[in-house]
């Protein structure tokens, strides 16, 4: 019970963000209308994804230092879970884009950037399948993971700022904080982000523990 307080917190925040996200009042804006509620679901996906990828890079670095196979397993499971959240982010984003921008896949640098970042992490998973030897696989994929991370940061954060983007906060568009939005949005948005990040980390640790058990089972038999 002492160790699982953050899981309970994550659940509570998620529950709050779902209930509050659908029931609490939102600012009335043209074009966006009620679809602004997607803010509570679409944006936290990316926060969850980035945090998982960050955890993965940290553990890849740790693996390179320590050589413990557990660190590598945690890095892989973070990427596995992160890719799922990335897909959710893309799906919820294209639903939103279809309503507000009239196109499920507008030619937007942020969209393309996150699609390419997905390709990068899928390539990481393919690379792992290409190598049979366990230690070697762990080491080489850790190197690739660390190598790809800064490029992904450039892709998602720096490139969209240089070019025109439909997304708020880049290319001359105002950031969300500059919108005339009342604090109602923030009241749900920040807890939603925290809730999704905590849940993502929880899912990742579950997968990691299953992976550890599998690993132990395989080494004994």
């Amino acid at each position: 019970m002492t160790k699982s307080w953050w899981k309970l917190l994550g659940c509570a925040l998620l529950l709050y963000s779902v209930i509050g996200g659908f029931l609490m009042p939102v600012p009335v804006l043209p074009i966006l209308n009620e679809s602004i509620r997607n803010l509570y679901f679409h944006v936290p996906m990316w926060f969850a994804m980035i945090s998982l990828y960050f955890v993965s890079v940290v553990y890849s670095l740790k693996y390179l230092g320590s050589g413990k196979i557990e660190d590598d397993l945690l890095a892989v499971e973070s990427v596995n879970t992160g890719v799922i959240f990335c897909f959710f982010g893309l799906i919820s984003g294209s639903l939103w884009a279809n309503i507000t921008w009239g196109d499920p896949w507008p030619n937007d640098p942020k969209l393309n950037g996150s699609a390419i970042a997905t390709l990068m992490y899928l390539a990481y998973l393919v690379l792992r399948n290409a190598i049979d030897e366990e230690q070697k696989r762990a080491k080489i994929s850790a190197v690739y993971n660390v190598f790809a991370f800064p490029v992904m940061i450039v892709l998602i954060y720096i490139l969209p700022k240089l070019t025109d983007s439909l997304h708020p906060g880049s290319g001359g568009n105002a950031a969300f904080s500059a919108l005339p939005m009342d604090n109602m949005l923030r009241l749900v948005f920040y807890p939603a982000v925290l809730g999704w990040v905590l849940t993502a980390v929880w899912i990742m640790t579950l997968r990691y523990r299953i992976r550890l058990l599998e690993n132990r089972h395989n080494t004994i038999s």
Partner: protein
Amino acid sequence: MDLFSQVKILIRKELILEWRSKYALNGVLLYVVSTIFVCYLSFKEIDNNPTWNALFWIIMLFASVNAIAKSFMQENRGRQFYYYTIASPQAVILSKIVYNSLLMLLLSVIALGFYTLVFKNSIGDPLFYLISVLLGSVSFASVFTMISGITSKANNSSALMAILSFPVIIPILMLLIKFSKNAMDGLDRSVSYDEIGVLLGINLVVIVISLLLFPYLWRD
């Protein structure tokens, strides 16, 4: 022996090896020239500036993947062990990056010359276009060298090289296409400073990360 002199000797070794066989250079030159020729025969002429620019960069992308994928394949295991005993891993990767950059610079200048010869098009600011091509070839070299080091440890498959390197190179390619397009349209030079800065920054980061990570890859 300090890092600098090790790098110098290793680069000399690469150049001598290349000069003896002339395999990589001739192969890649032939590859790029025949690719441009294939494009010439299929397109005949290109009026559209963005298409002209994009086609050139796509040709360069495939040529450089092919050129640099070989950089670790030529060395057999025994020779790699020998380097391991006499040189530091940083010197090895740095010398490969410098050598590949030289190769790519030569290749891209020849490719650009041949490309402008067959596809006639007016470039607004030739000097800046040349700078974008040179900057691009150095960026390609620094990214692909590390990726080819990674794939060389994973059974050397060329499909893996493409899968791993394309997502990493796309942001650089997008910046390069934007920068060279600005030069092509003859826009004011200050417009491109942002792109040049980010490109140089990415190059620096990639080279530093390669230097830090290669020692782990190397020890096998």
